[in-house]
């Protein structure tokens, strides 16, 4: 009976030569590519930007002046009259939704054990994310401070003097 020969990892296997890492130890080159690494990097980069965007959002909307009492349709109209806040809110929407979606994706992968459950939870997640991002983007760019329905100005709107 011959003794089982155990190779230490990444050592030169007999007959293979050159001391290259054995194929089973390669981490790249799989079908997933480096998506997971990019997702990991995105969480950190978007996280830093989101700290600035969200702390600014909370300060301007809740802490300055009358705080939450000042928030109404006119408040939103005032902010989105300025491209600065349109871009701010657009960046916040996209980064927060993608950051949150990737976080929830990770949690689903961790806790949903059945393949089918995992897949369906992620289908629902991605559908919700798509709807919210598209809706939010359209709202920011099609916002109308003076909405008119059937030729009648809606009450509460901010319309130019006739």
């Amino acid at each position, binding site marked *: 009976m011959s003794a089982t020969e155990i190779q230490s990892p990444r050592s030169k296997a007999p007959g293979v030569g050159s001391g290259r890492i054995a194929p089973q130890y390669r981490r790249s080159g799989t079908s997933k590519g480096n998506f997971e690494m990019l997702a990991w990097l995105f969480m950190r980069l978007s996280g830093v930007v989101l700290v600035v965007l969200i702390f600014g959002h909370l300060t301007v909307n*809740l802490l300055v002046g009358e705080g939450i009492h000042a928030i109404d349709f006119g408040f939103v109209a005032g902010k989105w009259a300025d491209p600065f806040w349109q871009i701010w809110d657009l960046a916040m929407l996209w980064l927060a*939704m993608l950051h*949150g979606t990737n976080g929830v994706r990770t949690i689903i992968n961790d806790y949903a054990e059945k393949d089918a459950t995992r897949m369906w939870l992620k289908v629902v997640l991605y559908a919700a994310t798509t709807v919210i991002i598209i809706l939010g983007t359209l709202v920011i760019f099609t916002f109308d401070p003076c909405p008119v329905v059937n030729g009648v100005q809606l009450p509460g709107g901010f319309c130019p003097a006739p």
Partner: protein
Amino acid sequence: MPTKPAGTLYRGREGMWSWVGHRITGVVIFFFLLVHVLDTSLVRVSPEAYTAVIGAYKNPLMALGETGLVAAIVFHAFNGLRIIAVDFWKKGAKYQRQMLWTVLILWAVVMVGFSIRHLSLALGGH
């Protein structure tokens, strides 16, 4: 008969609990974000619809909810910066515990300030 080995329950102390806290606050913030985009979208329905629904955020019970939400956001933000430091700073892993206590102290300071300001505005009668 084999028995379960004793004492193998993982208790990761600060590192594990900050991870748990990061997940829970992350999920809470994500679901609020979905609702918040929907309520803001009411500006495209009518000025009155938006102002009516946003008015629901202005009662005392919601003021407490908003404070809780901001508490979750501030923890997630500061602990997120700690995670980045652990990953990218050479000594990050070594000092992760000290950084967690720094996160908690900063979180407490910011939340005391925020709570005083927000609750006095929201509950202060208008």
